[in-house]
């Protein structure tokens, strides 16, 4: 990784196992990782940790993933932050809604972890 400053990634995921896996993978890649398990905690966390990228689950308690996307795009600190949506849902309508709400890329869970690494790298702005 040709990065000098530590990159901070915010994981929004209510399933503790998935969150654990994502944290493990991304830390191994050398990222600084923060996790929240509820949609309504995202905006406050964005203010405190100023993430470079957000990994977002769609099925969330509190706000839904789509609502979180929309809120982030209207947030002054996160309007440009890449959002990688990771979802277990196969509902294409929901996928379209997420992309329309401002998600940068979308991954469907299941054998997705390898893809996460590549997608995260691709979405980060080149240094």
């Amino acid at each position, binding site marked *: 990784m040709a990065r000098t400053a530590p990159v901070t990634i915010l994981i929004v995921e209510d399933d503790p196992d998935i969150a654990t896996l994502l944290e493990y993978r991304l830390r*191994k890649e050398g990222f600084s990782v923060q996790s929240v398990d509820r949609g309504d905690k995202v905006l406050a966390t964005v203010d405190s940790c100023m993430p470079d990228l957000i990994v977002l689950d769609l099925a969330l308690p509190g706000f839904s993933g789509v609502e979180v996307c929309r809120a982030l795009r209207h947030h002054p600190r996160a309007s440009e932050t890449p959002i990688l949506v990771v979802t*277990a849902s196969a509902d294409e309508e929901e996928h379209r809604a997420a992309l329309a709400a401002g998600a940068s890329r979308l991954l469907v869970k*299941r054998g997705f972890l390898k893809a996460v690494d590549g997608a995260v790298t691709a979405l980060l702005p080149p240094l």
Partner: protein
Amino acid sequence: MMAMRRGSFFRQVFLGIMATSALAVLASAFGIERMLERRMVETLAENLLVDARMLAETLDEGALQERVGVLRERFGRRITVIAPDGRVTAESDVPDEAVARIESHATRAEVQQAWREGWGWSTRRSATIDRELLYVAWRDDANRRIVRLALPLGVVEESVARVRGGVVTGMGLGLLLALLVAWLIARRMAAEVNGVAQVALDRAGGARPPFPVTRTEELARLSGALAVMGRELDQRVDDLEAEHHRLQTILDTMNEGVVLCDEQGRIILFNRAAREQFEVEGEVTERTFVETIRVPEVVALAGRMLREREPDSVEFDWRGRSIQASFVPLVEDFQAGFLAVFHDVTVLKRADRIRRDFVANVSHELRTPLASIAGFAESLAEGALEDKAVAVSFVDGIQRNAERLARIIEDLLQLGRIESGRLPLAPEELGVGPAVDAAAQVISTLRTKRHAFVNAVAGDAKVYADRKALSQILVNLIENAAKYCPPESRIEVSADERDGMRRILVRDNGPGIPPQDLPRIFERFYRGDKSRNAAGEPGTGLGLAICKHLATEMGGRIEAESDGRGTTFFLFLPLHPPV
């Protein structure tokens, strides 16, 4: 109307009888008088003939004129003696010197008859003395002359007048009697006609009185004919009413709203379901469709229907219901109106939504643990195995998620078995209290979260249920309460009887279920705010759906109430085996 017609019939019968009676009375009065008069004149004439014969004996040819004057004085009869040539030889009521100047009596009817037949009589006004007289002439063969006596008819007229008084009185009485009889007959017949007419009218008005038995033959026939017609009509009216009733019953028991309109859009028919769907009250016929059903989509369609006359349909939401409206134009009998059928598809749509939700939910619920398993395995394969601590935690993750998958699949299979009726249930009489104790035993959460659990079920409370199913429901309800309540909450189970059923109450004093979630908690995989399920293993989302199905299968049901102070589940089950 009625009074006039009755009066007319009565008057006709009455006047008819009266006129006939009066004519008969007058005719007979006239006849009797004429006959009486004639009979009296004849009797007088016979008497006069006897007198004439006797007087002729005493009338010599000499001093004839003198003699008739004497006899006139003695018998009070006018006496005329006429010679064969018609010359009057003596005349009692004429002065002697005038006798010779009396015209010939040869042509007098009684004189000619007497010459022919021996005697004759006639009545006429006398030219000689100018009075109505009865003349009787007798041929006196011995002296070759006619002796004629005359008597004024005033006597007869007096007698007839006397008799006539009696006759008139009698006939007057007769007429009075006839009047009474006529009145009675007319009144009775009028009453009979009236009675028949009234019954006919009453029947026209919908009542069914029997036709009266009349004493008049023709009226009896009329009455009988009307009765036959009445029975025929009754039968047809009964048939029509039965038909109408059947149709109305069908229309009113239909779940679909049915509305029939004429070409002006006025309502002809509006069934019960339509009234309920559109909350319409009172009389609707003669009202228009547009002012009765104020749903914009339907009003627009009704307008199009009357203009374009093409079948059409629309689906719309109305006061929380989804309704599908089908319009069909009508021809012929209904003068170009239309028929609208409203089908409430709320339940269908809800079932469809639940089914679609279920498919989405199943896929999500199975995908999530699978994704975790795949993720853990992938990460282990890619190097996590090297880090012992991480590897142990990942393997544990795989195990937990595999168990979770197994539980979900087991629950889905059980639900499938219950729904398809393949779950063998063996209901028996069970004590509720012991069942609650046994359920509480297996719920570790009660102890780990230090809840106060109270079994307040009376010792003798019984229920008719399958032992395993009851246990599963109780475990589920108590475990839910234990999981969703903060530590050291109070969970109480009690039992009573309600509506002839056993009611078991599982009450907690936890945070309660949000009102928007409450109606859906028995749906499969429905979980409200997931964060509430903070402690322990996440449920499969099928527990309450299974409880509901088990309760239903055992002839009972489950309801839930909740507010900020806690939640109560009500489990209703039969007290006894069904009879």
